[in-house]
């Protein structure tokens, strides 16, 4: 009989804090403008403008992308191999975001921006205000038009490849973010879809390399996007399966309202925001 003693694990549930990044990228079909900087390319690889044009077409075209204002997504989230899964809902309209992750026995994690205040509330952790960097990341991550200017914000762009990525071959675009962090995007040589991204993400005091792979592309209202996203942070992984994606649904502002405990935190951090007698 095995009578070894056990130590209980610290399960790494920080994973769920980063779900917004991958979901957001799933809804950004393509970069659609040339970079502001002068990209360099190695021989025999297409220039960035060509890659951009191809991915615009693959995603459904610039007009289709520009037409996306509101967004709602429902899906499932799984931590592979760990026996942990749950559901995710995402709502977005210009300047506002709400993402709700529900994990049985862990509870609900809400991350949102009401147009001004960014916050995260969790049954487990409590409430906190998002930093300006986190708010910027969340808004950009959920903005379908973010892809229009993504590469123009990167410096020192270089295209290499093609390289093998799973069963596909992809062009790799490397660049540096506004803060000087490396960022990479892999575009399928045949379909021109984004198959993978890798970048640094800031979350509550940690700056972490996060990569995401995209698959199971589907076309919704003329826009093609992935419905399976695997996100990796070091040895931790999370798989998001998007079940229902609605483009331009009606979304009331009340849906994005800040919870009461967050209001108090915001008023304490910004005394001028407190109601005046």
């Amino acid at each position, binding site marked *: 009989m*095995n009578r070894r*003693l056990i*130590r209980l694990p610290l*399960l790494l549930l920080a994973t769920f804090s980063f779900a917004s990044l991958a979901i957001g990228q799933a809804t950004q079909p393509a970069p659609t403008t040339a970079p502001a900087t002068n990209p360099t390319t190695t021989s025999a690889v297409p220039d960035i403008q060509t890659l951009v044009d191809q991915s615009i077409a693959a995603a459904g075209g610039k007009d289709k992308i520009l037409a996306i204002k509101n967004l709602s997504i429902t899906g499932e989230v799984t931590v592979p191999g760990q026996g942990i899964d749950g559901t995710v809902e995402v709502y977005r309209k210009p300047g506002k975001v709400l993402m709700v992750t529900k994990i049985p026995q862990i*509870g609900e994690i809400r991350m949102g921006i009401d147009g001004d205040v960014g916050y995260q509330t969790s049954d*487990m*952790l409590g409430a906190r205000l998002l930093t300006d960097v986190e708010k910027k990341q969340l808004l950009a991550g959920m903005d379908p038009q973010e892809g229009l200017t993504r590469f123009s914000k990167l410096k020192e762009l270089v295209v290499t490849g093609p390289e093998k990525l799973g069963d596909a071959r992809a062009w790799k675009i490397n660049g540096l973010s506004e803060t000087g962090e490396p960022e990479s995007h892999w575009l399928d040589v045949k379909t021109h879809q984004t198959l993978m991204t890798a970048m640094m993400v800031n979350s*509550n005091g*940690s700056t972490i390399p996060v990569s995401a792979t995209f698959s199971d592309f589907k076309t919704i209202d003329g826009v093609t996007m992935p419905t399976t996203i695997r996100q990796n942070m070091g040895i931790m992984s999370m798989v998001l399966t998007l079940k229902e994606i609605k483009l331009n649904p009606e979304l009331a502002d009340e849906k994005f309202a800040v919870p009461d*405990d967050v209001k108090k935190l915001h008023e304490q951090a910004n005394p001028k925001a407190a109601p005046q007698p």
Partner: protein
Amino acid sequence: MRIAASLLIALALASGCTPKMTDARRELHVASFDQVWETVRDQHYDPKLNGVDWDAVRAELRPKIAQARTDDDVRDILNEMLSRLELSHFAIYPPDMQVQATPKDGFVPPLAKDSVIEVVKFGNLPELPLRVHSQRLNSNVQYFYVSVFINPLKVLKLFRQSVEDARTADGFILDLRHNPGGIGGMAIGMGNAFVTRPNQTLGQMRQRDITFTFALDRQANPYEKPLAILIDQGSASTSEILAAGLKDIGRARIFGSRSAGMALPSLAQKLPNGDNFQYAVANYISSGGATLEGVGVTPDQVVEYKPPYNLPDPVVEAAAAWIKSQSETKR
């Protein structure tokens, strides 16, 4: 051996028959051996595996799977492989493992002895017995005990209610004795209730390529009165991180005896043969810069408590006396 001497949670295996060792089952065991070996090679937070010759360990132990006659034999081989790392949080355990509600040494805080036991299942962890107890002591100090960091929905709700109740008390005692850990985020959730200043942390979790900060976030109405945390040799993992973290930032005074020194963040995965494999993926560094693994948390005030663990509980008494002294000093 430190691992064997650590926690006093005995494992009682179900008494079902051991599956016959067919060729197909042996193949699953070999695949399980390889999965365990590769996971450690690829995901151990120290790429040098603390100097252990991992290839040699594989060469020595993998052939023994061919001679194994039972599933228990295989578990012994896998656990032997993991023991070469000389670290906590590396273990193989069967899928039907149950953890006894009362530890082998019989310790349950006497104040919590009559609390209801709930069996909780989470992820690939075994079913775990959970006790939670909250009360106001006669000394006007709030007391909260949790036996394991699991079921955050229930435990954090009861904990936050206990903290609210404590606003009219002189202080708060958090009893983590014999608490072997659990979901790491619960330490942050509890820590958040007590921090009064911004930019506080419970330390860092260092993986091979990534460092996570256990950032604490001041809540809208934090608890500001004295906080005492009780630990003992059975307090491990999440318990140690919470105790060490709040001690380091000067928010809690620690009472009891030195903790287990088993504070490696870990995950648990299912193996091809159906067993569960727990493995550390990070080292924990306290906000004061200390490694707890193999060291543990040293109490500010050492208080011994020996069987048969009857009332009065000297550790609770010492903590309550300190809280009273703090309260009187403030007055």
